[in-house]
């Protein structure tokens, strides 16, 4: 497994061995802090946005401008609280449930790419792994609901189980729609293919991916159990749902997990649909990619400017993902909560058929484009796009050597450049 990204590895290789280890540790700690600080920022955002939407000011006193230290004050208060465990609860399960939620949403960050090559584990089936890991979070919620020894919690846990088991299906299908356009489950490759003008983003690849983006966003909101789908903690009916009996740090672990997984699902949306770390403006993207490949000693990506370009890329990625989180917060304070039967109807009767339709349409779209119009996508002629994307992301990675011999014809999966050009010549 690669615990550090290719470009970082190349960058630090010049210094010798032990500096590389220190650099890896620094980046691992940074990754942990993404998990720790994104809830910190988003809880403040939630308070501020909800305040503005309800014609209030929100936090203003703690900290300086806009009360930005409010989350820290909340955190200190929660640490001081007594760690309660009800007598009716199964104490071992009750105490360990928050950790499952926390660990599973943190583990998702390991395969989430933050910039070109900036990913803790550059797995070939990254999307599959991240969906698998995010599906574990529900287990912690169910366990918390079951082991609390309270009826409110049990109801919350059962609702969460029913909701998650249903919403995982459209979530996976919608995530597959841009994967069909990309021909890869590797999140790093998928992000790299969307380089150039924003019309290259998979959101604008075809009408099916455009709709799939919005369906994905709705389903992702539901999978983070955010309003209007927060039936598991519906305050007006279930007191606090699955976390009724929790207090102090264990309670806040649930919310760290929730806000971190909001960032994770919005990060997936940003990589799959919104170009990931690419700015969407072709000259800037080209300049950043050129900076990434700049060298001082012959190896591509060894110059410090390449590192800076990746920092900018990570900033762009974080901005896109945070915008997604902002929209989720906005939705929460705008829309009323659905009833549980409405939640299930929305998923099983509408979202699942819609996502299946989008999936089928996305598989047919490349065939229609190539045979009918002679183009790979509506913006690029045959062979232009797929070849560039694959070339850019595969250069310098070990994977280029994986298939020995002549290149495999991937024509059915991705309209790859080589096969289609040959066809054009024959015609």
């Amino acid at each position, binding site marked *: *497994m*690669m615990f550090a990204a290719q470009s970082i590895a190349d960058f630090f290789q010049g210094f010798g061995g032990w500096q590389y280890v220190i650099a890896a540790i620094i980046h691992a700690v940074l990754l942990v802090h993404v998990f720790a600080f994104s809830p910190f920022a988003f809880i403040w955002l939630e308070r501020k946005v909800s305040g503005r939407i309800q014609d209030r000011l929100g936090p203003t006193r703690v900290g300086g401008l806009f009360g930005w230290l409010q989350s820290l004050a909340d955190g200190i208060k929660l640490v001081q609280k007594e760690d309660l465990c009800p007598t*009716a609860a*199964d104490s*071992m*399960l009750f105490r*360990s449930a928050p950790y*499952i939620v926390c660990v599973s949403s943190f583990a998702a960050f390991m395969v989430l790419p933050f910039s070109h090559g900036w990913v803790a584990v550059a*797995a*070939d*089936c990254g999307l*599959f*792994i991240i*969906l*698998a*890991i995010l*599906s*574990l979070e*529900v*287990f912690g919620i*169910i*366990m918390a609901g*079951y*082991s609390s*020894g309270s009826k409110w919690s*049990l109801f919350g*846990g*059962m609702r969460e*189980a*029913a909701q*998650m*088991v249903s919403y*995982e299906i459209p979530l996976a299908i919608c995530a597959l729609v841009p994967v069909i356009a990309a021909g890869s*489950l*590797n999140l790093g490759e998928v992000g790299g293919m969307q380089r150039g003008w924003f019309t290259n983003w998979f959101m604008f690849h075809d009408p099916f991916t455009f709709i799939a983006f919005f369906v994905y966003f709705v389903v992702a909101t539901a999978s983070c159990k955010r309003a209007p789908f927060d039936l598991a903690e519906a305050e007006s009916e279930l007191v606090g749902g699955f976390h009724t009996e929790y207090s102090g740090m264990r309670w806040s672990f649930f919310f760290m997990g929730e806000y971190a997984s909001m960032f994770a699902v919005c990060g997936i949306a940003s990589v799959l649909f919104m170009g990931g770390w690419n700015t969407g403006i072709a000259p800037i993207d080209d300049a950043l990619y050129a900076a990434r490949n700049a060298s001082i000693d012959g190896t591509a990506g060894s110059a410090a400017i390449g590192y800076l370009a990746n920092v900018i890329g990570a900033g762009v990625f974080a901005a896109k993902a945070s915008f997604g989180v902002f929209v989720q917060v906005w939705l929460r304070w705008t829309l009323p909560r659905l009833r549980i039967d409405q939640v299930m109807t929305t998923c099983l009767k509408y979202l699942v058929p819609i996502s299946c339709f989008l999936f089928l349409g996305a598989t047919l779209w490349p065939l229609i484009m190539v045979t009918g119009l002679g183009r790979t996508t509506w913006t690029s002629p045959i062979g232009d796009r797929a070849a560039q994307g694959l070339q850019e992301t595969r250069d310098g990675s*070990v*994977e280029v*050597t*994986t*298939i*020995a*011999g*002549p290149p*495999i014809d991937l024509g*059915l*999966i991705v309209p790859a450049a080589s096969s289609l050009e040959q066809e054009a010549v024959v015609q």
Partner: protein
Amino acid sequence: MNGESFLFNVFALATCLGAIAVVFSQTVVRMAFWLVISLGSTAALFFLANADFVGAAQLLIYVGGTLVLLVFGVMLTASGPYLKIATSPGEIVMGSCVGLLFLVVVYASLNGVDWREPAAAASGNGNPVVATGNTLRPIGLSFLGSRPDQDLTGDGETLTPGYLLPFEIVSIHLLVVLIGAAYLARAKRRVVGSG
């Protein structure tokens, strides 16, 4: 001992301890929790062995799917607050016999396999895909019926069949199961509606 083998030992230990705890716990949901530990550690072992796809499938199917359904079922069907399973002595004997038989089978098959590195890998011509864990593309191509890992290194005359036929058979089977399940659920609802 390098970092990876240390982690491998840690997760192997967690797998075994989780499995033992499943056997010795009484409450169904606690069993499910220990199963999560055991199966999750198994997935970690797969990740450490550079089998990313199998590890992710393990997490998604067993931990995220089967166990959630199990706990969900317990929550829907349990009459008391914490459902317990009392094991009778006969069941313990039966279970131990089956477990010992399985142990014999596993031991026999472990001894039956030649674990030395194949000649190709030893001479440096091994498949670099396996070393990086990026095995997804070969697996996908095999499901489509093409085996680039075998055919491109071979003589080019005999083609290795992929997994297309078994894959399609399993797909059709699952489709039949899905339709059957939908039919059963529908018939049940009709009875409730008329009554």
